């Protein structure tokens, strides 16, 4: 499907996907290629710098941001399968370089072509999915940065609704934070537990057998709590479902469960 006019996309896989859940990376590549993009996965990528940024280590974050911008700024688009890393690349990099005459424009140009995966597929590539089938009752969790920094709300739902047999259900607290918050969840485990429990209760109340979201941080947090509470709800990244890559284990499930 690709030709000379096909957009060249640099996939920023994110450190969590790279390390913990490669299937999300493969799903992203597949969705992007099927949408007609030429996808590249630069080897010079590590992390977007969020842990340093949220810990107040601004000077290191600036170094990391420069590194990311340099490795990716020549693509037509930079696509990220995560709302919070997307928010970092798209909004916070600009804040970091405020008043820097060389880097502020570069950060701005970089931000303008950076998109979270699902919103890129829906808003920019205007993808319509056909022929997908999955018998599942699925609850969607709106990750905080995706929702509030990138206004991702309709796009993943629209894409999920195209899957045959998939019954999308809404929790009343779908927009409430799951209590992950990066280092927050290890710094204040008790508060985080209270928050993720509220999230889990809300998901259970929907009757869903599957939970999806666009951020691996939230997903690992919610999956981990569901499993600790012995609740059998499968947890996956939205892209896995849309790329029909649900044959492997869900998050936290053993390999032989596949």
């Amino acid at each position: 499907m690709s030709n000379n006019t096909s957009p060249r996309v640099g996939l920023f896989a994110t450190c969590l996907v790279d390390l913990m859940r490669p299937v999300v990376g493969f799903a992203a590549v597949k969705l992007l290629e099927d949408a007609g993009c030429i996808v590249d996965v630069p080897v010079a990528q590590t992390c977007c710098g969020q842990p340093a940024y949220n810990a107040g280590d601004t000077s290191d974050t600036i170094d990391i941001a420069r590194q990311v911008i340099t490795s990716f700024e020549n693509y037509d688009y930079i696509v990220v399968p995560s709302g919070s890393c997307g928010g970092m690349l798209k909004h916070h990099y600009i804040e970091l370089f405020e008043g820097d005459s060389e880097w502020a424009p570069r950060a701005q140009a970089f931000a303008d072509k950076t998109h979270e995966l699902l919103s890129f597929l829906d808003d920019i590539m205007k993808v319509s999915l056909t022929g997908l089938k999955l018998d599942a009752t699925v609850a969607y969790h709106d990750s905080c940065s995706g929702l509030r920094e990138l206004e991702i709300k309709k796009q993943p739902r629209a894409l999920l609704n195209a899957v045959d047999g998939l019954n999308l259900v809404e929790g009343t607290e779908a927009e409430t934070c799951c209590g992950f918050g990066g280092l927050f969840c290890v710094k204040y485990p008790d508060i985080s537990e209270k928050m993720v429990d509220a999230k889990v209760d809300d998901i259970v109340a929907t009757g869903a057998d599957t939970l999806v979201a666009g951020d691996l941080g939230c997903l690992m947090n919610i999956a981990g709590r569901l499993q600790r509470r012995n609740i059998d709800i499968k947890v996956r990244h939205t892209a896995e479902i849309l790329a029909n890559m649900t044959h492997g284990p869900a998050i936290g499930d053993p390999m032989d469960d596949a």
Partner: protein
Amino acid sequence: MQSTSPNFTQNAKDALQDDPLQAALAKLTDGFPIQRLEAAARLPEFEDLRDEARDIKTHVLENLDLYLEAYEKKVVESGGHVHWCQTAEDARETILKICQNANAKTVTKSKSMISEEIAVNDFLEENGIEPVETDLGEYIIQLRDEPPSHIIAPAIHLSKEQVADTFRDAHTDLEKDRPLDEPRALLEEARAKLRTKFLSADVGLTGANMLIAETGTNVLVTNEGNADLTNNLPRVHIVIASIEKIVPTLEDATTILRVLARSATGQDISVYTTFCTGPRQLNDLDGPEEYHVVLLDNGRTDMIGSEFHEMLRCIRCGACLNHCPVYKSVGGHAYGWVYSGPMGAVLIPNLIGMEEAQHLPHASTLCGKCESVCPMRIPLPKMLRRWRERQFKAELGSTRARWALKSWVWLVKRPRIYRLAMNMSVAILGQIGFRGRFKSLPFAKGWTSKRDLAAPTGDTFLSQYHNGARGDQSGELIRRGGRK
């Protein structure tokens, strides 16, 4: 007030174990946020009003000196006095002096967060003057000798049974086994007790929701009408307010009023909105003989022009508390000082010091809900990050965490070595985590104490991808994408 902010972690733990508190907080979740949503939906221009309100305060802060002078002039013209106080201590002394000049024995008070900030109650008591809180919530916590746990609902942490017990302990002149099961009964009892106080008070001390430069007026918003009795009945009315409470005109005040109650309680407007200008005038039927405004700085001018400048737009509506998942988990007392929730986490370090309050900016997931509901569009998460930045520069916090972060940053900045390190990590974790997840991991206790940790599912994505893997393509046949 002595802060317990350094003990935030323990405070929070205790709060999570406190059943009545948890029951009260659960009610908060179903109350104010839903009412706010409905109120906003009833007013199509609500979002535009938020912009207008923000712009009014932004403009004021850019011209604060000008408006303060104009305001003072108007107060003096209307026969009132303005006292400029730099510190909490100055303000306490000034209030005491006014009370002493009036030979005051009793001071009635309507709810004022600034009076909590300067801890004036204890100070007056030490000097032989009885302060009486007249807002029901404030009255209850005064009897219990507790700080407020919410900026607009100070006793929200209590159940009605706890309030009944408090009343039985405090009002010993009443029959011991009187029925106090209904909120109505509690209200009646407080009202009867307060009525005599209202009538005997020599000085009424109120806060101010706004100070209007155009007219020299202070605006008071309540749902109980207690502020009106406090400012009208005693001979002397003292207004205590911080300098950022200024708005230019009556028109501006009404714009802010339109977002205030809607954001706070979901009311279109509070039950009582009172405008007080100076002492009783020649043809007035009632009102105080003396009118004093104690204008407090207490750290505000240091915030002007700093990265916390925008916090001075705050109108203390409480919406950020009502919507904060952390506040709703632990309540206000855990924050350890007068303010709480997101606005408290930004403001408290400014007022009692960054080191003392160092936990608060970290006790947030930066989920952004607060900013999304703040009527003044204050970027609260951004300012929490600014505190974290200052702390990092000042090397506050655990050295271990700092070193962990520094080592990680070192790797992140070196993609080749990072790759090797990640490949090794997944190999090791994959070996020991073959059951798909960890129940406990020694170096990830914070995580595994509460939840399982998913194990890596194989080599890193990048190494698999660059070795030619493309994931599970078995679904290819039934899936076709393309542009719409």
